[in-house]
């Protein structure tokens, strides 16, 4: 009680002092207005009073720092080794890499484009990003800086050029490229007893599958759990879409969610689209336990390297791993074949990936000049060879590099080169749609598969359900 009275006295005493001051005369609404006003003034100041960009330096600075943005991953990160070497040779150029997860990197690129920040001087740019980044004014054409660019381009496979060139300008000189293929166990597929047993059961010769029906038959034939499974479906949504359903599956049936982009219509729920979903659902029966949560990096690659899969559909990149005795039980037992298609005629190989260093259009003139000098150095054969021997850039974009005996002995790329040259039928240009709307139906594609596997829908119902969702996404995008 005593304590309470004391507090009251303090209140009254302070109140009297306050009465004399102006503070006590301010009403509550005025205070609120003041607070909001301060906030608004602070915001407007921050918005409009941005520091002015520094004027361009008349002479090249003594030290140049090239800021590099890349997604975390083997291909972009291997550039860090090249940076170190370049800085040793050119002490006036340093690199400041920002290696960040894919989604964060994408956000940073978008910030650069929308806010013209100029934070980065160089990017590791995937083929599918190159032309939209060029359209958005994020990257400069390399021919602005590299005079004899055609001498580089002539060493590249033709199909790469449509992803890096526009309106007569070249925006990227990729250091590697990549595509999908079917890895298979040659020791199983070439075994005479297996061949005989297969023919007896299915009535035709055993071979790496070229049609969906053959895919199902061979997967069923080689499924001998728990030591061997015929195939492994990627259950994790993004891997399923990019490896089996959206990119390779639909294309190999001549289908595309962008077939009638103008009218926001998709053509994935016709006969071939339904058959594709049926095939993939059937293949889940011949996939190892846990496939529902699997993706390339954490599941399928390891299982194939351990010798637990007869077939594995993926990008080329794990090939060097499969040839490494320290990491693989299937060294010398791996062949490569085409993506199975709705029919033998194909198309059998579709998606193309790859990447290289591009120059920001927003950074300072001297930085861009220094970046171009670095790219020219990077593309020298000896440096390309060194990168190829890391095993992380498969296949080197400069085809001359593959003829080097060391590179050839290390990468053993011949099966892929032959496959592409003889069977690679459709390389389509990666597009902005790949980045944008496909992210909005990746999970739904996996759900369509799950609905069939769980018996909740037929393949036709699942295809219709997915098509309805895709068309909604397209309509709302327009």
């Amino acid at each position: 009680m005593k304590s309470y009275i004391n507090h009251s006295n303090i209140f009254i005493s302070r109140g009297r002092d306050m009465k004399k001051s102006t503070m006590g005369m301010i009403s509550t609404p005025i205070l609120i207005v003041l607070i909001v006003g301060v906030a608004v003034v602070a915001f407007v100041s921050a918005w409009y009073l941005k520091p002015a960009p520094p004027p361009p330096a008349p002479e090249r600075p003594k030290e140049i720092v090239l800021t590099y943005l890349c997604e975390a991953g083997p291909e972009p990160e291997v550039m860090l080794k090249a940076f170190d070497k370049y800085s040793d040779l050119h002490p006036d150029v340093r690199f400041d890499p920002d290696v960040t997860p894919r989604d964060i990197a994408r956000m940073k690129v978008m910030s650069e484009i929308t806010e013209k920040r100029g934070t980065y001087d160089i990017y590791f740019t995937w083929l599918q990003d190159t032309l939209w980044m060029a359209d958005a004014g994020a990257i400069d054409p390399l021919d602005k800086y590299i005079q004899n660019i055609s001498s580089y381009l002539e060493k590249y496979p033709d199909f790469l050029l449509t992803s890096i060139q526009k309106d007569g300008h070249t925006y990227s000189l990729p250091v590697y490229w990549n595509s999908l293929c079917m890895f298979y166990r040659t020791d199983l597929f070439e075994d005479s007893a297996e061949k005989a047993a297969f023919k007896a059961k299915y009535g035709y010769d055993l071979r790496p599958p070229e049609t969906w029906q053959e895919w199902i038959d061979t997967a069923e034939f080689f499924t001998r759990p728990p030591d061997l499974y015929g195939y492994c479906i990627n259950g994790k949504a993004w891997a399923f879409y990019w490896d089996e359903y959206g990119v390779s599956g639909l294309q190999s049936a001549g289908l595309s969610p962008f077939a009638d982009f103008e009218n926001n219509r998709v053509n994935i729920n016709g006969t071939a689209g339904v058959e594709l979903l049926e095939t993939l659902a059937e293949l889940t029966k011949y996939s190892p336990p846990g496939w529902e949560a699997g993706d390339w990096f954490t599941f399928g690659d390891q299982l194939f390297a351990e010798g637990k899969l007869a077939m594995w559909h993926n990008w080329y990149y794990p090939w060097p791993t499969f040839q490494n005795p320290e990491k693989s039980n299937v060294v010398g037992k791996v062949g490569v074949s085409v993506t199975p298609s709705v029919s033998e005629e194909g198309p059998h190989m579709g998606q193309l990936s790859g990447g290289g260093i591009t120059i920001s259009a927003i950074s300072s003139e001297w930085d861009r000049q220094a970046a171009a000098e670095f790219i020219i150095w990077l593309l020298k054969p000896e440096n390309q060879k060194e990168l190829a021997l890391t095993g992380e850039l498969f296949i080197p974009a400069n085809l001359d590099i593959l003829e080097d005996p060391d590179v050839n002995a290390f990468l053993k790329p011949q099966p892929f080169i032959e496959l592409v040259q003889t069977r690679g039928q459709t390389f389509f240009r990666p597009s902005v749609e790949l980045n944008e709307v496909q992210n909005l139906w990746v999970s739904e594609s996996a759900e369509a598969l799950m609905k069939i596997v769980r018996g909740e829908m037929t393949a036709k119902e699942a295809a219709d359900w997915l098509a309805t969702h895709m068309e909604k996404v397209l309509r709302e995008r327009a």
Partner: protein
Amino acid sequence: MHKARARSAGRRLEKTGILLAAPALALLVLLFAYPIFFNFYMSFFRLNLYVSTEKTFIGFDNYVSILQDSLFYGALMNTTFFALASVALEFIIGLVLALLLSKIKGIWMGILGAALMIPMFLSEIIEGVVGQLLFSPRIGLINAFTKSLFGVEFPWITSKTLAMWTIVIVDTWKMLPFFILIFLAAIVSIPKDMEEAMNLDGASTLQQVRYLIIPYMLPVFAIATVMRAIDAFTKVFGVVYVITFGGPGLATDVVPLRIFNLALRAFHWGSAATWGVFAFLISTILVAMYIFVKRRWT
């Protein structure tokens, strides 16, 4: 007369307090109110950054679209299930552990208490990685353990029904310390004379819990539960992103993951903002519950 003067002085003092807090309040307005209003504003536009940086006013189209979208209700159901299940599990286990910890005296209470707190300070991504190491079908420790002991494995993250429970379990491991901390503080603050009185009356431990501890802690229960429910509903992202990415299929698709996909993978900012408005409205209802409960019990 004296009372009136005291009231007037108190009001003036209150205004002074507000004035002194004005810089901090202005910062709050800037950092919280502005983004919320901007989000509302954006929800009336179509802005797809991959296509264009120009936005188009489309009125309530984004709202209509979401309300007609079965995926919205699926994500909402999953998020609600996650919030309810994780809060319930954390509440029950947290209470039991807090009661046990309160019986431990001396330095061991400090050591055990500190050890139990560690998960709460880990980032969501680490939480997800730990979850993967425990529950992954290929490298998961839990299945390795159950297989070696009982010869069985469980589809922790591969089954439609079990996957969300796995997310709940991982989140419970991380956020359990929140309840333990609050409950322990409340138990320790129960007047000792009341405990002694119950002891003298011959009350058993269970009776003490039933007739003393639980009634005494009811306000704490209510406030902690609502606070944690708000957190669980609005922040279930990292653990789902790392462990299941919303799968298998859409089995663990949650509202924050969908907002992330729309805003920062597809860069459809208008749609993402509208999803954000719905998440905000639900959070507001939970905050209103929190304020009601706080006023009712304190």
